[in-house]
């Protein structure tokens, strides 16, 4: 190419501009001189020859300009010139620039930080090969298509080895089906023994997921040979946090449950096969002989990969057929299968909250846009004279548009930079404030997305360009006349007015929707904070004691565990002996922190209540046929200060050898023994057949916003759980003894990890995290929106007033009273406000309905937005508030209009 000629020329044009200009004029001068000489030689007098030469060339400056164009110098030059000019204009109106930038930056910041979370949690692809083909397979007792239901939530159960083998051999929809089981093992050899959570996985697990290991390999078929070598695959977290990111880790050995395991691989940080917890290791499950008919060992969670082209719905249909057959073969302990796509399972209900937040910040961004656009437009209208002059001097429309574009580019860049800083800070604060129990998957992977930021800035740029061009178009046709008629109009142009009106309306609608949603969420949060949990939550220190299988035996449901049973009794005594402890409650699950899984209730001698067997299979029955089971120690009821309604509470005499007994709550009685005395009745639930000995008053177990559900309390002495939660009632502030208790447990058995210690008050406040975060974030967004909308409305109205000074002056001169003038200015805002309120209320209602209508609902978000709770007063007060704001915002400029002196206004020019 000829770049070696071109490049020096370009560079010269750019950097040695003076020299290039001098050369150009020298060159033309030489030409003119020659022409003059020629004319003189032909006998013209020198003066005439000079004029002739200029005439022939056709204007030295024009030729120069054309030469510059030919050199393509002008483009860069104009760009720089416009940029400088634009910056100068912005410097001249710094308030405008500041307001525009801050407005946009707020919108960009909020949007970017929320969208970056949305992207990481929802849209980032799962770290598996073809993740769309992966499904979870859950169990459900009873006929196919019938779900466990508790209140408004569907529940699924785990499976047993026999189910996995049945499904594996019979269902043809799957390429592979495997399963995992949670496994806590004691890791020794480090500084201190620690119980770590991992998974024991069935064969083909890693082949099915198909994600490459970060180091080494995943488990493979040879690892599942019975009595083979002990091997383990560890997570990135264990590798980094416990093994110091040692690159030579593959082949090293770690000790789990006092046996040596060889590390064969490290999985990457985003390898997240399950929606809860974060497994630190994976060990192969060695199949044993009786496993194929093992219908007792619950806790298996099957995962499967669909064959290419098979949908999960088709797999479900096939499962329904298989399940019906299996029920005939094993009428007493069959399990139906429910297929849930992997992404739905992993993301769960969190998208609901994120959808709400995304919607909120989008509205905020729209308000910011409207404000920004309004500022730009008023600027452009104000500068019509300037544009007219520049046009008159020969600037092309494109050139003026380009200049506006440059100004907007500068604004957008500044706003984008500010917004980026805001987004960064916001995301950090937001993620830092999430409680541990927050069930948002993949939060670790949240990054402030540069592409996203660029995208949002791009939108801003396009929007501002559109504004400028609209303004130019509106003014363009008349710009020739603008010089003459500027300011002479009686009132501002109708087009401008309509634009302003549209702006006011949209600000009204957007901010009203946000305000109403915010108020509803805050209301429900505040209401929940006042809900009485039904037990005494003050001075309760809660923590979890994990029980290593290696020292206390492997846990399985419904089996006898004498060692655990003794352990819990001893623990109770040890904790109660710590000075400051009043009494000790123990339970398998912590109230208000865990959802209690339900099990079906069978009452001997009574038909099962009809369930949703007929009709559509998916809409499971709402008839309560299940109860939650909670294992508690006998002191539980007195330590939590629960109220006895009937019979007696559990007592120490209900030991392992005594007949199995249970206490039920009032909701249980209402569901299964309405109008009857349940005391002395025997029921069959899961693997137990207890006799009911007492009824306890309902209290909140599953969530402050949930109604009481049927619950049953078994004794930890009779059915010891795998590990245990302790609630120690203290005499004073629970924080005071938070070190003494772990110490005494450590003295008893150093290998008993004490985890997740916090006060009950904290547990309760954490249980509301979703509500709190929704209320706080949407509340903040709404507050921001109101401020932005207020300033926006103010600036629009005050601009329109300043444009109508003449009109007001004439009206006053013709005898309009102050009232008339006020009415003129306020009336317009008032009309817009009324329309805006109507539209906004309607929109808020629709949005509320939309947020609650879907089937995958985060119950705690949904219930606060449920239509029946959409308090009409909230709508009325929010609307009134915004109307007041709008009127206040337009009152200031309206008063300015009142002070207009007619004589001055008429002379105003």
């Amino acid at each position, binding site marked *: 190419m*000829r*770049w070696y*000629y*071109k490049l020096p*020329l370009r560079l010269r044009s750019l950097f040695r501009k003076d020299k290039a200009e001098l*050369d150009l004029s*020298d*060159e*033309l001068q*030489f*030409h003119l*001189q*020659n*022409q003059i*000489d020629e004319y003189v030689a032909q006998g013209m007098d020198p003066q005439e020859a000079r004029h002739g030469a200029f005439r*022939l*060339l*056709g*204007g030295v400056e*024009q*030729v120069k300009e*054309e*030469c510059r*164009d*030919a*050199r*393509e110098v002008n483009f860069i030059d104009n760009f720089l010139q416009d940029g400088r000019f634009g910056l100068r204009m912005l410097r001249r109106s710094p308030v405008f620039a500041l307001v525009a930038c801050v407005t946009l930056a707020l919108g960009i910041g909020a949007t970017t930080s929320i969208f970056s979370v949305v992207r990481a949690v929802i849209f980032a692809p799962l770290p598996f090969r073809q993740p769309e083909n992966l499904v979870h397979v859950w169990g459900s007792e009873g006929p196919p298509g019938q779900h466990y239901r508790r209140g408004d939530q569907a529940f699924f159960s785990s499976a047993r080895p026999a189910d996995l083998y049945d499904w594996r051999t019979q269902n043809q929809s799957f390429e592979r089906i495997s399963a995992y089981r949670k496994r806590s093992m004691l890791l020794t050899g480090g500084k201190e023994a620690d119980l770590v959570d991992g998974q024991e996985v069935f064969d083909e697990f890693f082949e099915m997921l198909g994600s490459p290991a970060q180091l080494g390999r995943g488990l493979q078929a040879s690892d599942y040979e019975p009595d083979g070598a002990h091997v383990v695959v560890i997570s990135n977290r264990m590798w980094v946090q416990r093994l110091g990111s040692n690159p030579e880790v593959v082949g090293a050995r770690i000790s789990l449950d006092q046996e040596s395991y060889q590390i064969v691989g490290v999985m990457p940080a985003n390898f997240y096969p399950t929606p809860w917890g974060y497994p630190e290791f994976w060990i192969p499950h060695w199949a044993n002989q009786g496993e194929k008919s093992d219908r007792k060992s619950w806790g298996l969670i099957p995962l499967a990969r669909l064959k290419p082209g098979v949908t999960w719905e088709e797999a479900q249909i096939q499962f329904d057929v298989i399940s019906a057959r299996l029920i005939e073969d094993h009428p007493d302990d069959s399990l139906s299968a429910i297929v849930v796509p992997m992404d739905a399972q992993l993301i769960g209900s969190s998208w609901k909250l994120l959808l709400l937040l995304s919607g909120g910040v989008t509205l905020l961004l729209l308000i910011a846009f409207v404000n920004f656009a309004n500022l730009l437009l008023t600027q452009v209208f104000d500068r019509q004279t300037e544009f007219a002059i520049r046009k008159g001097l020969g600037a092309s429309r494109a050139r003026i548009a380009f200049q506006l574009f440059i100004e907007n580019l500068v604004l957008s860049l500044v706003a984008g930079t500010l917004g980026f800083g805001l987004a960064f800070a916001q995301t950090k604060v937001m993620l830092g404030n999430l409680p541990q129990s927050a069930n948002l998957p993949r939060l670790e992977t949240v990054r402030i997305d540069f592409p996203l930021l660029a995208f949002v800035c791009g939108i801003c740029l396009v929007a501002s360009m559109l504004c400028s061009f609209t303004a130019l178009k509106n003014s363009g046709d008349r710009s020739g006349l603008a010089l003459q008629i500027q300011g002479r109009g009686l009132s501002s142009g109708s087009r401008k007015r309509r634009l302003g009106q549209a702006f006011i309306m949209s600000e009204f609608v957007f901010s009203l929707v946000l305000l109403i949603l915010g108020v509803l969420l805050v209301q429900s949060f505040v209401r929940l904070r006042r809900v009485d949990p039904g037990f005494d939550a003050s001075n309760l220190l809660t923590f979890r004691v994990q029980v290593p299988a290696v020292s206390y035996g492997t846990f399985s449901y419904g089996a006898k565990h004498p060692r655990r049973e003794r352990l819990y009794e001893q623990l109770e005594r040890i904790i109660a002996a710590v000075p400051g402890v009043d009494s000790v409650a123990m339970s398998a699950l912590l109230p208000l922190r865990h959802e209690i899984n339900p099990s079906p209730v069978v009452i001997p001698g009574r038909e099962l209540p009809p369930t949703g067997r007929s009709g559509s299979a998916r809409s499971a029955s709402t008839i309560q046929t299940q109860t939650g089971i909670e294992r508690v120690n006998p002191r539980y009821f007195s330590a939590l200060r629960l109220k006895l309604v009937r019979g007696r509470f559990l007592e120490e005499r209900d030991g392992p050898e005594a007949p199995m007994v249970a206490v039920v709550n009032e909701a249980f009685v209402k569901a299964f023994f309405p109008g009857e005395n349940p005391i002395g009745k025997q029921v069959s639930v899961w693997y137990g057949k207890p006799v009911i000995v007492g009824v306890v008053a309902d209290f909140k177990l599953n969530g402050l916003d949930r109604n009481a559900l049927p619950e049953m309390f078994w004794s930890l002495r009779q059915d010891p759980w795998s590990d245990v939660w302790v609630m120690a009632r203290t005499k004073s502030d629970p924080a005071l003894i938070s070190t003494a208790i772990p110490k005494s447990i450590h003295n008893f058995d150093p290998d008993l990890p004490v985890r997740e210690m916090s006060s009950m008050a904290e547990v309760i406040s954490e249980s509301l995290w979703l509500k709190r975060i929704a209320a706080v974030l949407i509340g903040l967004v709404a507050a921001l929106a109101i401020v932005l909308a207020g300033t926006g409305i103010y600036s629009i109205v005050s601009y329109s007033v300043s444009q109508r000074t003449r009109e007001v002056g004439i009206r006053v001169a013709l005898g309009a009273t102050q009232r008339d003038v006020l009415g003129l200015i306020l009336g317009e805002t008032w009309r817009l406000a009324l329309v805006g309120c109507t539209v906004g209320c309607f929109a808020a209602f629709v949005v509320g309905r939309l947020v609650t209508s879907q089937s995958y609902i985060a119950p705690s978000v949904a219930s606060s937005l449920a239509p029946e709770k959409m308090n009409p007063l909230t709508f009325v007060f929010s609307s009134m508030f915004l109307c007041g704001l709008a009127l206040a915002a337009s009152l200031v400029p309206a008063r300015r209009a009142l002070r207009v002196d007619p004589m001055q206004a008429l002379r105003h020019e």
Partner: protein
Amino acid sequence: MAKPTDLVQGTLDLLVLKTLALQPMHGWGIAQRIRQVSKDVLQVNQGALYPALHRLEQQGWIRAKWGESENNRRAKYYSLTPDGAKYLRQEQAQWKRLSSAIGLVLEIS
């Protein structure tokens, strides 16, 4: 004398390049030469000449150097680059084809 023919759009470049192929020349000289060679038929629009020269230079067909003119004035001399020579040959061939084709069409009638 007939009115000098206006140059067909685009042919100015060709004429300039052809003139420069003979020897390096300044703008004034190019205009004079074209007029002389065409026996006053072709009158170069002086206003268009210089932008054309700058454009050709920008495209790398010609390059410029300052030198002394015949009457001892400082003048900007343009000369053809090798690329420009190649380009000229192409354009010339193109022009010949075009003009002979037009000639043929005009002969027929």
